């Protein structure tokens, strides 16, 4: 430090002891405890609902009790008279300025994107749609005033069933009809594949509707100073939201700042441009006061977009030895009442994943999006890929059963061998790397596969009322969304990049700014590890800023397991640019050529001499700027935008053993083993946590969760008392391990892990349930595999399908 040529300020900094010594590599791959935790563990949180503003008022929305109705009258006058009430509005009051909630994914030529007013004006199309709002000094007054709003409805027929909806003469959700879009993808000669096929498996599976249920309910706070607007929202996508809100409300983008403060989970449910976000902005514009909305859980179950909800007709043609000839998939996908941000795209995300890890000669995918009078569906953890993986992995088990071979053997005969990568699949994707054999072998060993099979045989022989079932899921998924070059080829402009920047502070501390927007994933920790290794600065000297469009000005946010694969790499590249700048400065200060310098352990060293400059010294030198070379700016700060060439393809093998009580139908998970290959790992602790949570959500789809509407369109699972989320007491410990086949598509070799567990686990569990009961003639149990459904399957009646 003594060499620092510094002024007074510089001396103070230098003497402050703040400037750390550089460190070597070794952060990547280390099980660092998270930087995020301390705040969250001590209650120093910034959930949107925690935020207060001077003069803040609370809005509540009155929601339609009718699934489908014409609004004939809304009278808010009585509500306005109540104490503490500032204003009350109906949809008509916003009709001229509220625009339409956007759908950013027109997936086909024939798509119909109906007008979607944030607050219903003339017609409601699902239970929960906002029809009026009340703004009051606090939420208690607002809740009271909501009761004084009068709404008259003229009921219209609910449209609940997708098959019925497509039947000619069905009541219509929208004037244009109930078909949102249809699309077909064909590759290879499907007819030939099925013609004279020795084995054809033909199944229909129901992907039930799910409620994402992030633990933090949504909340929005909007404020304005009359000129600029700030919106805090519990969102995954502050950047996308900012543009979309500017477009929707007419507030110029440069006067709108969007902040995602602490966000309590999303799982896709906060990948949305919501009615409440738009309306809070309009309200603050109209009232000139900060307006907050805090969702209640029962409100959220009605109005946070739902997930899944598909009917999957899948047919597989195979040779007598089990080798797959071809695959045909026909989907009906329930859109709900409107197309929201990526609603129609969700089933299409699975379009190229039904063929999964298997080789085949022909593939056909057809999908019809259907309007119903329900809450719109949209992204939920995995979005399209869990559905596809479920169908193919279920059918692979059926194929094995048909042939009388072990389900793993059926997969071995068809999967892409590790020496065949990179491999271009029938659906046109190129898988860069993978080793299905290795993951499967490891999983079988951890699981004790042969021993469990022996126990299963024994229980079958003994006629034990508690039968053992073993379920297999050898999955892959497509993540790291998405390569802009390929989007450009399809004439869709940019879209898949991510931004990262690095600010070198005078004291040698580092601010990393990322365009990703974490809400539990631990980006602050992982990005710190990446930057620490790249720059050679201590892990603790790095902070990561995110989730505020005024701080992280560019970004495409967090969803689709993209953050590390795209955003993490962008941070790495920004670090490289910092080093490029630092190298020039170091060469200047050390009076050598940049080529004579090698960067090691956070310092540039002149080859063959002891002279060196640490990155911190260089940051300080750039700050003082007393002695900069010609053409070098007084900063090392850099930014980078990374855009991959391809998706990444994590994979793995999940094995699940269940005990099925054939007398009651109760399913209990006996053991669960997951061996995932997510490429290189930045922080194994975080990766394991993502896998655990993902498995839990996938298991929950298999066994517990279902959003149920009655025939009139009332949601019967509006509270957590009826929408059953598993607690610690309902889940087992998961055994996890990894194999590591680096991705070839990015310099970190990473693949993404956010959705893997969810994608893999659902079919593993259901396969296990069916496997337990197959000797009794059961070949399917509809999800969730409730005790009643399992019991009925055993009884051979409704709820299960027997062969």
């Amino acid at each position, binding site marked *: 430090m003594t060499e620092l040529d510094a002024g007074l300020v510089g001396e103070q900094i230098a003497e402050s002891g703040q400037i750390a010594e550089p460190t070597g590599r070794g952060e990547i791959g280390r099980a660092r405890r998270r930087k995020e935790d301390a705040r969250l563990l001590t209650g120093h949180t910034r959930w949107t609902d925690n935020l207060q503003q001077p003069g803040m008022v609370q809005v509540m929305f009155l929601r339609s009790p009718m699934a489908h109705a014409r609004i004939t009258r809304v009278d808010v006058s009585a509500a306005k008279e109540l104490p503490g009430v500032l204003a009350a509005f109906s949809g008509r009051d916003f009709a001229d300025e509220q625009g339409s909630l956007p759908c950013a994914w027109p997936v086909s030529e024939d798509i119909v994107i109906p007008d979607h007013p944030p607050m219903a004006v003339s017609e409601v199309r699902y239970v929960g749609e906002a029809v009026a709002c009340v703004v009051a000094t606090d939420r208690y007054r607002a809740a009271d005033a909501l009761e004084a709003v009068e709404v008259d409805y003229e009921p219209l027929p609910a449209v609940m069933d997708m098959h019925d909806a497509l039947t000619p003469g069905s009541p219509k959700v929208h004037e244009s009809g109930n078909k949102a879009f249809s699309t077909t993808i064909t590759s290879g000669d499907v007819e030939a594949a099925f013609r004279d096929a020795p084995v054809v498996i033909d199944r229909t599976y129901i992907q039930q509707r799910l409620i994402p249920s992030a633990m933090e309910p949504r909340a929005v706070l909007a404020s304005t100073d009359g000129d600029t607007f700030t919106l805090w929202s519990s969102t995954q996508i502050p950047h996308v939201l900012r543009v979309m809100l500017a477009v929707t409300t007419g507030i110029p983008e440069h006067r709108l700042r969007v902040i995602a403060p602490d966000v309590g989970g999303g799982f896709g449910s906060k990948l949305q441009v919501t009615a409440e976000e738009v309306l809070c902005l309009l309200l603050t514009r109209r009232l000139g006061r900060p307006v907050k909305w805090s969702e209640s859980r029962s409100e959220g179950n009605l109005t946070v977009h739902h997930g899944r909800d598909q009917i999957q007709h899948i047919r597989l043609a195979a040779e007598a030895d089990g080798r797959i000839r071809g695959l045909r998939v026909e989907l009906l996908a329930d859109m709900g009442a409107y197309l929201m941000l990526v609603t129609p795209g969700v089933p299409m995300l699975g379009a190229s994943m039904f063929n999964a890890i298997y080789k085949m000669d022909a593939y056909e995918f057809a999908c019809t999006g259907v309007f119903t009078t329900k809450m719109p569906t949209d992204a939920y953890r995995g979005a399209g890929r869990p559905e596809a993986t479920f169908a193919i992995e279920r059918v692979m088990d059926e194929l094995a059963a048909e042939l009388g071979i072990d389900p793993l053997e059926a997969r071995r005969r068809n999967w892409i061998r590790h020496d065949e990568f990179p491999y271009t699949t029938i659906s046109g994707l190129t898988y860069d790397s993978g080793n299905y054999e290795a993951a499967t072998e490891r999983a079988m060993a951890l699981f004790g596969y042969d021993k469990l099979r022996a126990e299963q045989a024994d229980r079958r022989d003994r006629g034990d009322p508690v039968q053992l079932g073993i379920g297999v899921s050898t999955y892959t998924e497509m993540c790291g969304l998405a390569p802009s070059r390929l989007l450009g080829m399809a004439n869709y402009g940019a879209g898949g990049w991510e931004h990262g920047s690095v600010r070198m502070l005078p004291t040698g501390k580092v601010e990393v700014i990322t365009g990703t927007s974490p809400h539990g994933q631990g980006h602050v920790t992982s990005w710190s590890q990446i930057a620490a290794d790249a720059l050679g600065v201590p892990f603790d000297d790095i902070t990561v800023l995110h989730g505020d469009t005024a701080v992280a000005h560019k970004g495409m946010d967090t969803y689709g397991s993209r953050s590390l694969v795209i955003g993490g790499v962008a941070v790495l590249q920004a670090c490289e640019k910092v080093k490029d700048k630092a190298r020039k400065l170091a060469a200047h200060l050390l009076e050598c050529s940049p080529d004579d310098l090698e960067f090691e352990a956070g310092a540039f060293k002149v080859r063959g001499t002891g002279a060196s400059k640490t990155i911190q010294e260089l940051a300080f030198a750039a700050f003082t700027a007393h002695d900069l070379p010609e053409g070098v700016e007084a900063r090392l700060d850099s930014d980078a935008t990374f855009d991959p060439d391809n998706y990444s393809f994590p994979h793995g093998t999940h094995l699940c053993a269940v005990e099925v009580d054939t007398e009651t139908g109760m399913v209990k998970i006996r053991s669960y083993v997951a061996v995932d290959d997510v490429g290189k790992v930045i922080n194994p602790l975080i990766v394991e946590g993502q896998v655990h949570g993902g498995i839990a959500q996938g298991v929950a789809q298999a066994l517990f969760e279902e959003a149920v509407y009655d025939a009139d369109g009332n949601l019967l699972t509006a509270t957590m*008392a009826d929408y059953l989320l598993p607690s610690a007491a309902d889940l087992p410990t998961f055994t996890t391990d990894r194999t590591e086949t680096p991705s070839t598509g990015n310099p970190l070799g990473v693949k993404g892990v956010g959705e893997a567990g969810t994608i893999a686990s659902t079919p593993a569990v259901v396969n296990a349930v069916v496997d337990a009961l197959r000797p009794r003639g059961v070949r399917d149990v509809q999800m969730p595999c409730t005790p009643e459904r399992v019991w009925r399957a055993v009884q051979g009646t409704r709820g299960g399908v027997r062969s």
Partner: protein
Amino acid sequence: MIPARFDYLRAGSLEEACQALAADEDAKVIAGGQSLLPLLRLRLSYPTTLVDIGRLPGLSGVEDRGDHVHIGAMTTHDEVMRSPVVNAACPLVAMATATVADPAVRHRGTFGGSLAHGDPAGDLPAVVLALDGVLVARSERGERDIPAAEFFVDYLESSLRPGEILAGVRIPKLGEGWGYHYEKFHRTAQAWAIVGVAAAVRRSNGAIQEARVGLTNMGSTPLRARAVEAALRGVEVGEQVRPACEAAAEGTSPPADLHAQPDYRRHLAKVLTYRAIGKAAGAP
């Protein structure tokens, strides 16, 4: 969600509480509030006044009174399940109480509150019914004993009259030779029982001398499976128990709801009764 407005009276005495309830049919007692608060928050309940009996002296605690155990209405679930007296003299109550909701709810929720709520899916009504408990109602006019068989009138309705408050419950001691089990069947740990079976069995010389069976969520009130009780008398523990339990659903009218259809509940009642009897009888 936010409760609607109501007045609040923290009763200084049971008499004051009874008066307040007698004066206003829309007044409502609050004990621990663990069933009531969610209803208030969802605005499914609009009491004019909440009469808080949570701090009244003498309503809380467990006492061994010779031939019976007295459980004060305001005794929390947590206190009940830990009570040495309950565990020794009427362990079935402790077993079932330990399955109510979750620990935090059990710290606040009360024994009397759960019974007065009269939810047929609640775990305790069937237990008190099976044990022939006597519910002690207090009003301005004094005390009234209500046998459990007459207490549960309908879905969420008890035979408490306006102005009456459940003050305590007497659980008769069954004496030596009895075994107990509460078999709760639910989809997740937090969920309501799809069906629950409370069983008490007296066994001697390898045979069942007497059995009591209470059913949870098999009708609009908790029910006794009298036919099973009759069929089990004198049955040797073993093969003969199962056929006797086939009568478990006799006379029930189980609800159809999101979580189960009536025929499945009937089936479960039989299976779970068999299991509960087996465990209560100490069968392997």
